[in-house]
């Protein structure tokens, strides 16, 4: 039952919904069976795997095989969900950390500037040349 695939987003297509038996209306949602067709990863399987609907009850052999496939994939996924980091890896990470404490992020104006003598001389020469050029241009005028 519950064939209305679009019921959740309010865009349900009334033509797709098959008539419900009187007994179905009396059941709580969680107890209802959800039949699926033979389409590839049907909406019902997605809803089930997303935790939005109960496990579908297949209406034919093909859909039964699909449900079985996803049940097995889920079983394998569950197993992987319990994998933990091998103990040696944590020790390796700690051993590989740099010895120094991480540097605090400082804004550029607070960072210290290291100037070598060569750089200082080059900067001074540049400033003198710039001053001379400005002086010359003023004299020309």
């Amino acid at each position: 039952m519950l064939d209305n695939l679009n019921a959740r987003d309010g865009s349900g297509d009334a033509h797709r919904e098959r008539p419900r038996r009187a007994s179905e209306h009396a059941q709580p949602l969680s107890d209802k069976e959800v039949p699926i067709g033979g389409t590839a990863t049907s909406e019902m399987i997605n809803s089930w795997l997303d935790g939005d609907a109960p496990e579908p009850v297949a209406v034919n052999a093909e859909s039964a095989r699909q449900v079985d496939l996803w049940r097995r994939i889920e079983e394998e996924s569950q197993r992987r969900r319990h994998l933990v980091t091998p103990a040696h890896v944590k020790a390796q990470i700690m051993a590989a950390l740099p010895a120094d404490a991480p540097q605090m992020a400082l804004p550029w104006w607070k960072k210290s500037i290291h100037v070598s003598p060569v750089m200082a001389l080059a900067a001074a020469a540049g400033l003198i040349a710039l001053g001379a050029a400005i002086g010359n241009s003023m004299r020309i005028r």
Partner: protein
Amino acid sequence: MKTTVPASPTDQQEVDQDIISRVLAGNRDAFSVLINRYSDPLYRHALGMTGSPDVAEDILQMSFIKAYQHLAEVRGRFDAWVFRIVANGCKDWLKNIRRTHLSYDEDDQPSGYSTPDEELDRTELRSDLDRALMTLAPSLREAFVMKHVEGRSYEEMADLLGTTVGALKMRVHRAREALQALLEEKYA
């Protein structure tokens, strides 16, 4: 993100911030608390994305070292920040590698609850599922792994990946479609 310490997200963020302050003040060992708290879900993510335990370990290690070096830059949730480092590490690795098949070899020991035939069948499914996952586009694989392997809600995924719930549902549904197409011939 699931943690080993049950706490509200705000409490958790405050505790993380306190640990970060201690590390920045020079207490290097305090960083191990963050590693213990977040490594498992991050490892599962890296393993699901790469299919290789060795690669997942490497990505995890590089990501935590990077996180340590840039710890002063954390703004907001540490778990979401470090998740992005790991997720980007996985995507970078996927861009640079073309792989054929890797499986969870060390987890393939038979359990005591199934017959040898069932166990063989299960091991085969594991390998086939890994192979099928590797054929998916990284964004689809990421969405499938986060939903199915890590068991996250769509809201949590949207928060971590900075996208919408609708877009993620679409990715997960497309990933399922592709996986079913790849596996149904053999299993369905």
